[in-house]
């Protein structure tokens, strides 16, 4: 759904009608013209407050990451394994359907994430929008950003710190449903015995992030 030049409307009722094929050829738009119109639409929609969610995708050592932001801030980071199209459908249902691939709103987030993966950045300075989570889960997720770069905590420790020592399982599900992985470092939460536990982006991604932070 990202290639705006590849599709050509619902149907062509004029096939076989002389003159129509010439008209079709004549009115065909090249991909660059469409891309430039798209960019203008992104800017106008943003300016007029119509852009519920802007998104882009970036390549990282843990695969392609989808970045999505509302006017309030970064609202979703999604791994490839989560299926970006499905994630966007969910964002449309939860936050509003006026969603465009509009990379500008994600410029800062994309740059900071690139710096993080390059080992040049140990913390993110980004407005975050936690509206995809609520209650205890959000409390846990907000705490995660306080776990320092290169450090880890156990699910049990996190439960204690957020004031609910018996809620170890709930901490696990808060991490598993973190809408902002990488940026909100749920990868820094491990089992008490030091084993990985789970990860929304898969254990290989969790290992990559932890190694990156240990090496830096």
């Amino acid at each position, binding site marked *: 759904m990202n290639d705006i030049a590849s599709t050509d*409307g619902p149907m062509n009722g004029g096939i076989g009608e002389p*003159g*129509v094929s010439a008209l079709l050829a004549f009115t065909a*738009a090249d991909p660059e013209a469409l891309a430039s119109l798209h960019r203008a639409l992104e800017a106008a929609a943003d300016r007029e407050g119509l852009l519920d969610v802007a998104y882009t995708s970036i390549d990282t050592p843990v695969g392609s990451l989808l970045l999505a932001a509302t006017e309030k801030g970064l609202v979703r980071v999604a791994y490839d394994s989560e299926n970006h199209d499905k994630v966007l459908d969910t964002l*449309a249902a939860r936050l509003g*359907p006026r*969603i*465009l691939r509009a990379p500008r709103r994600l410029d800062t987030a994309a740059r900071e994430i690139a710096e993080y993966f390059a080992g040049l950045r140990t913390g993110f300075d980004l407005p975050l929008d936690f509206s995809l989570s609520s209650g205890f889960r959000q409390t846990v997720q907000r705490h995660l950003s306080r776990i320092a770069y290169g450090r880890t905590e156990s699910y049990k420790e996190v439960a204690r710190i957020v004031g609910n020592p018996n809620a170890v399982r709930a901490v696990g599900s808060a991490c598993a449903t973190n809408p902002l992985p990488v940026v909100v470092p749920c990868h820094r939460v491990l089992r008490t015995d030091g084993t990985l536990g789970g990860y929304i982006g898969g254990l290989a991604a969790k290992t990559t992030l932890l190694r990156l932070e240990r090496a830096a």
Partner: protein
Amino acid sequence: MKKPFESIVTAHAQTVLRVCRVVVGAHDADDAWSETFLAAMRAYPDLPEDANVAAWLVTIAHRKCIDIIRAQRRHAIPVDELPAVPSSIGVPGADNHDLWDAVKALPPKQRQAVAYHYLVGLPYAEVAKILGGTTDAARRAASDGITNLRTTYPGALPEGASR
């Protein structure tokens, strides 16, 4: 469940631009396209789930194009610019300038009917709803438009094409 608006743009960007190029000309087509999609985005949350998206977009484009045609007349700017970016796809036996002149020479209703039916693929009943008037009138406008195009732009009629 409503799809992200991006998928609407992806699916219909090209078709709406074709419509705008035929109805208001290449010079104003980009503005018409932009205003159409911005208005569509504004209205999108209220679009019924089962709506015909192509017809909805063409209806919006139709209105935006009428505004532009009115402005063109008001400012009396000769609307004879060549397309800013001529199609790179060659049309055998003809040059695009002639086709452009032929399209421009059509009365607006014929241009609209040809665009909505032949370029978008809307059935005549839908075209009639957009143009106002009967289905038969819409069919006639499209058919007259094609006939006129063939007359003023013989290159549009391939040699020996007697379909």
